[in-house]
């Protein structure tokens, strides 16, 4: 759940004001009412601030802006603007097949049980490597495991364009293989062009990249 920053800052300011009363006049806690107010100020409100803040930060961590805040991810963000419909991430991003403000998370989360948690733990690992480890070059970044069709089928399964697609439905065995992840969607000859970072400099961009979390694209 996302709480707006002004609301959270207001709650924090209120908590600080309440605590400040007890720091300046600690004898206030001598009365029963003072003890209750102290409990609210020192215990309940701070935990509420942490809980609401955590929820908000978790929601923010799904944003495209968050993922691209590490410089190493900049080429990947730029690849979303490539002017080529065969470029899978770009066509999804530019045509809003994925929410532009959560473009990375939508495709790179895991739609299995606890998948969101797994994706966030992966994100924590990325931050550790980026700030405390030795980050690889952008073109050397690889997925932990081959891209699972499950992530594509989360949206495309049941869609007419997918179910009745000429190649998909030409042979019933092909559809079965796609749905059982035996035949990868991004395998050679199919939707193979994903983040082509190595050739990014040669590609024409649809328009200059802007903040994907703003509404002007």
């Amino acid at each position: 759940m996302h709480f707006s920053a002004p609301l959270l800052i207001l709650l924090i300011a209120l908590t600080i004001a309440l605590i400040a009363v007890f720091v300046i006049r600690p004898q206030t806690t001598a009365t029963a009412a003072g003890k209750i107010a102290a409990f609210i100020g020192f215990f309940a409100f701070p935990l509420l601030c942490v809980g609401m803040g955590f929820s908000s930060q978790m929601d923010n961590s799904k944003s495209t802006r968050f993922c691209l805040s590490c410089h190493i991810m900049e080429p990947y963000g730029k690849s979303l603007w490539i002017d080529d419909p065969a470029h899978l991430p770009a066509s999804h991003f530019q045509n809003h097949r994925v929410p532009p403000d959560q473009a990375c998370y939508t495709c790179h989360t895991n739609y299995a049980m606890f998948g969101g948690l797994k994706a966030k733990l992966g994100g924590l690992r990325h931050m550790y490597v980026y700030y405390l480890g030795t980050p690889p070059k952008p073109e050397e970044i690889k997925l932990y495991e081959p891209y699972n069709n499950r992530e594509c089928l989360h949206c495309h399964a049941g869609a007419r364009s997918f179910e009745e697609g000429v190649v998909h439905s030409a042979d019933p065995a092909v559809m079965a293989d796609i749905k059982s992840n035996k035949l990868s969607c991004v395998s050679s000859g199919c939707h193979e062009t994903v983040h082509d970072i190595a050739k990014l400099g040669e590609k024409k961009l649809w328009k200059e990249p802007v903040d994907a979390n703003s509404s002007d694209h």
Partner: protein
Amino acid sequence: MPIPRTTEGYLKVVGVLLICALIVEALSFLGHGAIAFMVFSFAAAVLVCVCVPAYLLTLVHKDHESPH
């Protein structure tokens, strides 16, 4: 800084710590990137693991019945 010996003294220290952690937490909401997330995590960890337990300890501190 002298070590506080009364409940009120502990409460003051805990209060100042809480205020500092809350200010850091509030500042983290001004950013949107990974650094803001880490700053928030640090502030939240201090709040939950240090400040709140320290406050709870003041409740059971022997001096908490000191007359005022």
